[in-house]
């Protein structure tokens, strides 16, 4: 009886998987394999691919060795990830804690904070281009207001010079990072909110009775039980940050002076503007290898995060 139940289970499994898996195989997995094959070719999309062995990968290696543009894009992408992930996650957690503190109007806050996520990234990028505009933008206007306030308070003529933001090689990437954190906040906040609401009240109450302070409660109860949520957000954030593209393309197109070009921006340019699809595929798989390795490391670190509570 056990044997036929097992095969029946297997057959049902295959049946369930079949339609979705067929489409997934055809339109996702096979293209990934095809793209991998293309990374060993010279391919301009219009004519047939032409096998060139590891030449594309060698070119990437040379580029990294000589601090070429792909190397710069790796650095910029890492800068972007380091800038958006820790701060973004911390802010989202803080926000979720605030919203979860039993206030009224939770759904209004939730909607407002999620608004940036609902709008297309292209539209958001364009609005932020205005915010960063050196002459008409909101940010420089705020600097003017601050200058005036400071002058009034101190009695001296204080002037914070208007900044060029997106046209300044040192400020462009931080500007994009700030805008991305703003955008992703709602998304992570909602996920954290859910995680928080999964923590039973009675634990907090028991701790309160025992005289625990807010910080102690957070450290001993909230944070450990949130670990799985944090892990999920982290993995998804890493995958997302490493593939950042739309904001860069719309706001700075990789400039100024290659300060904001990211890996996927390089991939896009090489694939669709320079018609070097093979080289772009090679870059994509280098990226894949990096993310895969990071995920493995993440899994190792996160092991043992399961917390049992009575």
């Amino acid at each position, binding site marked *: 009886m056990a044997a036929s139940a097992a095969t029946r289970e297997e057959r049902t499994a295959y049946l369930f998987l079949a339609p979705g898996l067929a489409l997934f195989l055809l339109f996702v997995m096979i293209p990934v394999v095809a793209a991998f094959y293309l990374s060993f070719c010279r391919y301009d999309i219009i004519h047939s691919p032409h096998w060139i062995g590891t030449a594309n990968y060698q070119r990437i290696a040379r580029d990294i060795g000589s601090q070429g543009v792909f190397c710069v894009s790796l650095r910029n992408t890492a800068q972007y990830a380091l800038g958006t992930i820790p701060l973004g996650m911390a802010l989202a957690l803080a926000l979720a804690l605030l919203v979860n503190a039993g206030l009224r109007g939770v759904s209004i806050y939730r909607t407002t904070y999620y608004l940036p996520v609902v709008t297309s990234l292209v539209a958001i990028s364009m609005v932020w281009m205005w915010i960063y505009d050196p002459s008409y933008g909101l940010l*420089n206007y705020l600097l003017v207001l601050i200058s005036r306030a400071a002058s009034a308070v101190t009695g001296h003529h204080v002037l914070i010079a208007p900044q060029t933001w997106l046209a300044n090689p040192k400020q462009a990437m931080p500007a994009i990072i700030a805008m991305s954190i703003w955008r992703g906040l709602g998304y992570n906040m909602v996920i954290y909110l859910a995680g928080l609401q999964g923590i039973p009240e009675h634990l907090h109450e028991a701790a309160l009775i025992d005289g625990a302070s807010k910080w102690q409660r957070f450290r001993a109860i909230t944070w450990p039980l949130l670990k799985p949520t944090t892990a999920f957000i982290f993995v998804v954030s890493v995958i997302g940050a490493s593939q950042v593209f739309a904001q860069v393309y719309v706001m700075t197109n990789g400039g100024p002076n290659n300060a904001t070009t990211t890996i996927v921006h390089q991939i896009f340019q090489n694939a669709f503007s320079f018609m070097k699809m093979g080289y772009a595929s090679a870059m994509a798989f280098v990226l894949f290898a990096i993310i895969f390795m990071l995920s493995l490391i993440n899994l190792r670190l996160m092991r043992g995060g399961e917390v049992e509570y009575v």
Partner: protein
Amino acid sequence: MKPLRLLLILVSLIALCGCGQRRQAVELEFWLADFNEQTRALIDKQLVPQFEAKHPGVKVNTQYISWAHLDEKLTFSFAGGVAPDVFQVGAEYVGGLAYRGMAQSIDEYVNRWGAKDDFFPASWNTCVYQNHVYGLPYLSAPRGLLYRKDLLKAAGFERPPDTWEELAAAAQRMTVRDGPVTEMAGMNLPVSWQIFVEFLWENGGRIFSDDGRRSELNAPAAVEALQFYVDLYNKYHVCPTAGMPQIGGSVPVFASKKAAMEIMNQFGIYNITKYAPELLPLVDVAPTPKRKQRVISVYTDWLAMSPQSRHKDLAWELMAFLTEPKNLAAYNATLFFIPPRRSAAKSADFMQRSPQLQEFVGLMDRYGRSLPAIPEWFEIRTGLQSAIEAAIYGSKTPRQALNDYSRELDALLAERTAPADGS
């Protein structure tokens, strides 16, 4: 409802959506990238109906594609076998299109047509690759030096600057600064490879060798040109700074009365007309300064025909129709560009009314020069732009930037294989 049934319904719905299309009368696909509302009104309501009236049974489907996505759309439509019959492309495209078999050479049509000599040479050459013609020029943008006559006079100059030294001197004299903020920039210059090319040519330099296979960007002429460009920014400080309207941004610098001069194409006049019409009588156009030679760079957008087109004769008819002097003038009028045909430039109302535009035409005719036709322009302009930016933002000296890029360029040009397999 059982899940299986739902699944079947879903699948059949999707399958139905893929049903074939009905056969129409002869349809021409026409893609335009330079347009605004007036252009669309002109094309959709006047020109296309006129053409369709002349050719009964023919329908022209016009699509307006943004420049930002033209490259991808063209590539994929050719790859998918659904390329447009006639499409508009930019100044750097002829080499790449011809090399990849994405543009049809129209030598026979042009020879039979006989209107070739009516076009300005600088405009016409934009459509030529290896002595074959691949399209018809549709709009042209020559560069010139726009300057404020009143400010120049006030600064003590009788005539516009004619050499680099004069340019730097005039710009410095006319720059007004208030602490870190520039109130009036002596010279409005975007950070652009096109400006560098202008200076390069003025200095007698070249981007490529004669055979187009090697870079000449590490030559002294090129380094001098880039040095001059960088000096305008970082040594003479005559260029706009933060707090000023962003170049290429919302409101143009020159038209906001925050710059005394600029190297700009005829669109600079349009900006004045739109944002500061009272300045119009005070603005004049001079040739860009010369060093070893006088050159005006001209960028032309043109119409190409797809080799995949099933109606090449008709596609040619459309191209010829659109470039008839009257129609060409009307199109360029909507966008404020110079019609690439002499007869059109002369007859156009908006051209005749503007003395500044007439100046531009004169410069274009006498000194105009277009980019050399090379297949790798898309990569080159990106790489060159990076090199220019590196020099201007100070992360490399002009010599370093150009030497480094020159090496890259040589490697890029060496990669070009015989076009037969198109790889």
